[in-house]
């Protein structure tokens, strides 16, 4: 059984007991425990179920690489699935439940899959479940989906918050083990701005667990002293609980800080995403131990040797009373020695190697009386939900059992793989290290930055250095190299610490145990624990031609689980290479993608949620609208009133009332969102002649002209009224959505094509509040305000003038988008509300009412005015809309002119704008198409037109619509059929698009 030892662990504080629960069971642990160590201390080895076969699973590792022990954590707004017990710090009141089983962890019906596993090899689902066809969606897929997945889906809205930090530094050091500490110290002493990140809650990494002597003192001492030195430096920033998650182009790196995961509910954000720009990055990310591939290596109680050691040394937890150690290297002997020194039993060390002599750790273990069997390995592990023993065999043979030994834990070590993820994210290449049988960074091919030079340097175990002395020297050298790249100088007296060297025998690669394992054993030798990929699966993939490493990975799902192959990739690769009779480097690796370890989507999203998700733009009148019944619609980042409802009135009724009132009396529209762009300079007229299809240079000061703007591709992109202010100044109105876009469009042409033209443009949209005063009573209202002359004679249709009204400085445009007598009045934005109030006051007995965008749409549609975004959709040219009158024939050139000469643009068969009137007065459905005879070659109904705008017109008491119709203007009076999606077909007659006041008399009064 696993239990808490009497000897205390390095990291726990036994004076601070904590209670927590697992599957409802109340358990106890200490401050400093991880959930993994606390569960083990309570003899809870069974922690989860695997993905495919629902095999019982225990914890196998002690860090981020853990593939098995994932739990649901917390509840309600703090519920989170798939939390690794190894990276979860214990806190008082922690609630965890195990995942991926039904009805319970101990008894899981899904475990039937394990019984059927011989029928479920790699890729089995590609070969079956095809018949009958409908069964995939309705039977097979639902079963597979419910069997797969891991944790439960969160249901409630996240109650925590998240934030982003920006940081800049000369040197980012990732990893707070001895290599990272030393690299940070060296760089710090050279005066570089350093950020050092460590993913766990403590410094030093695994060196203190493994022990050693640095500069004559213990490695613990070295860690303490180095940390103190770093803490005293102003140019060094240290962050615990912060993982280097990804390295991106040009020295961009992500840090993922878990601020309150260990103390839920405390103040502040839960996670913080650090967006770091580093001139140079040092990856001191350590190495991860590899499992060995032997039968039954997935049974709970089989663990990485280093993890077994960690639990003993760091947490005072033994994973078993009798632990068999199986290894191909010296390092695992540390585990045996640590166990023995803690008074635990190590019945045997099975060492796959045959060594010429005993030295170093081997000799030490033997001296402690531990039995060592060289050239031996595990034939199979015995047990179900817990290891009960191992069958021993010769490594060289096929697995014949020589001896069985009872034990309750197995500590395995297949060697170490440097953590090269961050090195590789942005293109760093790898080389195969034959001595240590691992991929390590090829320092001649680093990731390249903006200047084409390398910006990442690996250090310590992450660069394939495993002996303590090598690690420290390498870390110091890495920092030295980086300092040189930064054109900084390291003071001469700063040198690398020196560690005592241990005598060591070389490791021997072992990819299958025993070497000649039978098919039966291979089918029980796990590579990827979570996804249940076994040696036999990878060999099957090779047999079936999935020989590219990417194919093999995808076919078997090796390395695609939540640990992203941290434990399985190299073993899988070696298995594939073996099956193909190739060497490992020629098989290659899969691509390392960020993040190193999963990071919360909440942290990625950051602060910008709910109300501050995106900026909200408000006109000067926004608050008034809100207080006066406005029903808003989002228009870009603005919100515009769609209509103003009164009392229990429906939105539709409000719109109808607004239309009628504006036609008969007086309507007020907040038009402030309309784009207003000043174009000024000696060449402004020439410039606008290029921007607009119309001639703008001939416009007289004091006059307005409706203008059209096209893209260089010929399509209509915006429209609006242009006013000439003075000799070299024009004011261009754009659509609401167009203000920024058209301003940018103008700047682009000015800066990149006609940079010698003397023109300035300025977007002054937000400087003004603009109010449209519309309706037969409009003039009367303005006259009541008093001030400038707004008579027909003084201010005719399409004139503008500056002046005052009711004491407000204003600019008045006599323009109309409704066909009514209409003034658009711009005042300083800060006067907008007061001016509006003044208008409402003088207009009270003239019927003044605000109206919204829908009323605006109906008013313009009744007049046959087009709307950008309704009549246009990016495929429409002005000629389609009968706007030829607005295209100057006198100009040699304007943006879009050449494009409009292309054959498809001049094709007489283009669909053109017409009015549409239903025969029965009903309203045509939005977006309906008119059908012609027959079908096209692809079997689609031939279409001859479509509805672009459709409304019920209260003015005419019937439905009105505009549309684009094939040869439309030549087909007046013809009746078209518009099939609706409601099963009905609507009949509509082609009519003139101007439905109301065809002569335009009302706006001219």
């Amino acid at each position, binding site marked *: 059984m696993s239990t808490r030892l009497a000897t205390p662990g390095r990291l726990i504080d036994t004076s601070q007991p904590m209670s927590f629960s697992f599957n409802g069971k109340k358990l106890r642990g200490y401050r400093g425990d991880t959930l993994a160590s606390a569960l083990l201390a309570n003899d809870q080895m069974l922690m989860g179920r695997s993905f495919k076969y629902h095999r019982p699973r225990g914890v196998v590792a002690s860090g981020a690489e853990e593939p098995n022990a994932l739990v649901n954590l917390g509840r309600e707004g703090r519920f989170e699935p798939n939390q690794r017990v190894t990276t979860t710090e214990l806190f008082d009141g922690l609630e965890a439940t195990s995942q991926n089983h039904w009805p319970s962890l101990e008894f899981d019906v899904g475990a039937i899959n394990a019984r059927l596993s011989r029928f479920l090899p790699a890729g089995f689902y590609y070969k079956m479940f095809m018949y009958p066809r409908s069964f995939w969606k309705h039977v097979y897929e639902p079963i597979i989906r419910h069997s797969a997945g891991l944790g439960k889906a969160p249901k409630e809205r996240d109650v925590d918050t998240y934030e982003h930090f920006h940081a800049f530094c000369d040197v980012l050091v990732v990893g707070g083990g001895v290599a990272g500490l030393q690299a940070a110290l060296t760089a710090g002493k050279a005066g570089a701005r350093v950020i050092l990140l460590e993913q766990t809650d403590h410094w030093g990494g695994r060196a203190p667990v493994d022990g050693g002597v640095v500069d004559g003192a213990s490695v613990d001492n070295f860690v303490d002293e180095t940390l103190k030195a770093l803490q005293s430096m102003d140019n060094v920033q240290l962050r615990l609980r912060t993982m280097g998650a990804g390295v*991106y182009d040009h020295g961009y790196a992500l840090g993922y800080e878990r601020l309150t995961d260990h103390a839920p509910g405390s103040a502040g954000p839960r996670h913080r995403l650090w967006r770091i720009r580093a001139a140079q990055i040092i990856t001191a990310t350590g190495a991860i131990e590899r499992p060995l591939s032997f039968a039954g290596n997935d049974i709970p109680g089989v663990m990485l040797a280093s993890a077994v050691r960690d639990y003993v040394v760091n947490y005072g937890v033994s994973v078993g009373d009798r632990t068999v150690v199986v290894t191909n290297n010296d390092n695992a002997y540390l585990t045996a020695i640590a166990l023995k020194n803690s008074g635990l039993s190590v019945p045997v060390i099975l060492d796959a190697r045959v060594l010429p002599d005993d030295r170093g750790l081997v000799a030490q273990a033997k001296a402690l009386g531990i039995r060592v069997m060289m050239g031996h390995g595990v034939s199979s592990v015995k047990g179900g939900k817990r290891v009960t023993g191992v069958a021993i065999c010769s490594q060289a043979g096929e697995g014949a059992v020589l001896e069985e030994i009872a034990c309750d834990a197995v500590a395995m070590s297949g060697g170490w793989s440097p953590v090269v993820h961050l090195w590789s994210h942005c293109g760093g290449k790898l080389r195969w290290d034959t001595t240590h049988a691992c991929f390590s960074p090829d320092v001649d091919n680093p990731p390249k930055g903006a200047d084409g030079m390398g910006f990442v340097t690996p250090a310590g175990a992450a660069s394939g250095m495993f002996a303590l002395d090598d690690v420290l020297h390498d870390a110091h050298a890495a920092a030295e190299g980086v300092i040189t790249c930064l054109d900084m100088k390291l003071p001469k007296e700063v040198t690398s610490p020196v560690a005592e060297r241990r005598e060591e025998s070389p490791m021997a690669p072992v990819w299958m145990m025993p070497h000649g394992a039978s098919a039966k054993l291979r089918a029980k030798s796990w590579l990827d624990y979570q996804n249940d990929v076994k040696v036999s699966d990878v060999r099957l993939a090779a047999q079936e031609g999935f020989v590219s490493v990417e194919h093999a990975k995808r076919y078997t799902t090796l390395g695609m689980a939540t640990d992203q192959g941290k434990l399985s990739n190299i073993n899988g690769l070696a298995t594939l290479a073996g099956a193909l009779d190739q060497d490992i480097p020629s098989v290659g690796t899969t691509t390392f993608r960020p993040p190193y370890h999963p990071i919360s989507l909440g942290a990625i999203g950051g602060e910008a949620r709910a109300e501050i998700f995106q900026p909200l733009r408000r006109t000067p009148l926004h608050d008034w609208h809100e207080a006066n019944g406005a029903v808003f619609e989002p228009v870009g980042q603005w919100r515009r009133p769609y209509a103003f409802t009164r009392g229990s009135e429906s939105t539709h009724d409000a719109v109808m009332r607004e239309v009628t009132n504006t036609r008969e009396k007086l309507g007020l529209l907040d038009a402030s969102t309309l784009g207003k762009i000043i174009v000024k300079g000696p060449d402004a007229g020439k410039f606008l002649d290029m921007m607009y299809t119309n001639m703008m240079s001939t416009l007289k000061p004091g006059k307005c002209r409706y203008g059209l703007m096209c893209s260089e591709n010929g399509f209509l992109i915006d429209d609006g009224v242009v006013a000439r202010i003075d000799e070299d100044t024009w004011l261009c109105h754009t659509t609401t959505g167009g203000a920024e876009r058209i301003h940018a469009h103008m*700047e682009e042409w000015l800066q990149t094509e006609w940079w010698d033209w003397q023109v300035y443009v300025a977007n002054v949209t937000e400087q003004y509040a603009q109010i449209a005063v519309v309706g037969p009573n409009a003039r009367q209202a303005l006259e009541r305000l008093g001030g400038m002359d707004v008579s027909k004679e003084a201010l005719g249709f399409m004139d503008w003038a500056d002046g005052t009204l009711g004491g407000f400085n204003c600019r008045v445009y006599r323009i109309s988008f409704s066909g009514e007598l209409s003034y658009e009045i711009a005042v300083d934005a800060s006067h907008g509300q007061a001016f509006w109030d003044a208008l409402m006051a003088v207009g009270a007995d003239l019927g003044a009412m605000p109206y919204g965008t829908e009323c605006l749409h109906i008013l313009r549609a009744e007049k046959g005015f087009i709307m950008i975004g309704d009549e246009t959709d990016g495929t429409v040219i002005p000629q389609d809309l009968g706007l030829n009158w607005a295209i100057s024939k006198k100009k040699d050139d304007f943006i879009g002119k*050449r494009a409009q000469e*292309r054959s498809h643009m001049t094709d007489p068969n283009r669909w053109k704008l017409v009015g549409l009137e239903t025969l029965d007065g009903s309203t045509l459905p939005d977006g309906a198409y008119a059908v012609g005879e027959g079908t096209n070659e692809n079997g689609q109904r031939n279409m001859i037109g479509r509805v672009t705008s459709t409304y019920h017109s209260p003015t005419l008491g019937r439905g009105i619509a505009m549309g684009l119709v094939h040869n439309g203007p030549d087909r007046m009076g013809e009746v078209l059929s518009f099939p609706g999606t409601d099963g009905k077909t609507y009949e509509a007659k082609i009519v003139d698009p101007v439905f109301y006041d065809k002569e335009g008399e009302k706006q001219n009064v």
Partner: protein
Amino acid sequence: MLTIHCPNCGVTAEETEFHAHGEAHLKRFGPGSSEDDFESYLFMRKNPKGVHFERWHHRYGCGKWFHVARCTMTLEVFGSYTGQTSVPPQQIIDTIQDRRPDWVPAQDQA
């Protein structure tokens, strides 16, 4: 995540301050131009694997347009230069050839 240098305001800043707008040094063809020339101007692109001259806009900064010479295979940046030129300046060409001796500018790039 690129860092881009704006030659107008002189800052080197995050890509998020800027916006890229495709191939640089396109010659505009207007009315009277041939179908081929006009189509090429609007749509045909070098889209090179390697050295690329492109237009950038300091959208959330000084608002100016400029040019960047960049490698599309490594994202290495060779330099930024004024938007107000129809060919890359010699200094940029030199820098590129320094780092990529095999590279030769296209006809319209010299």
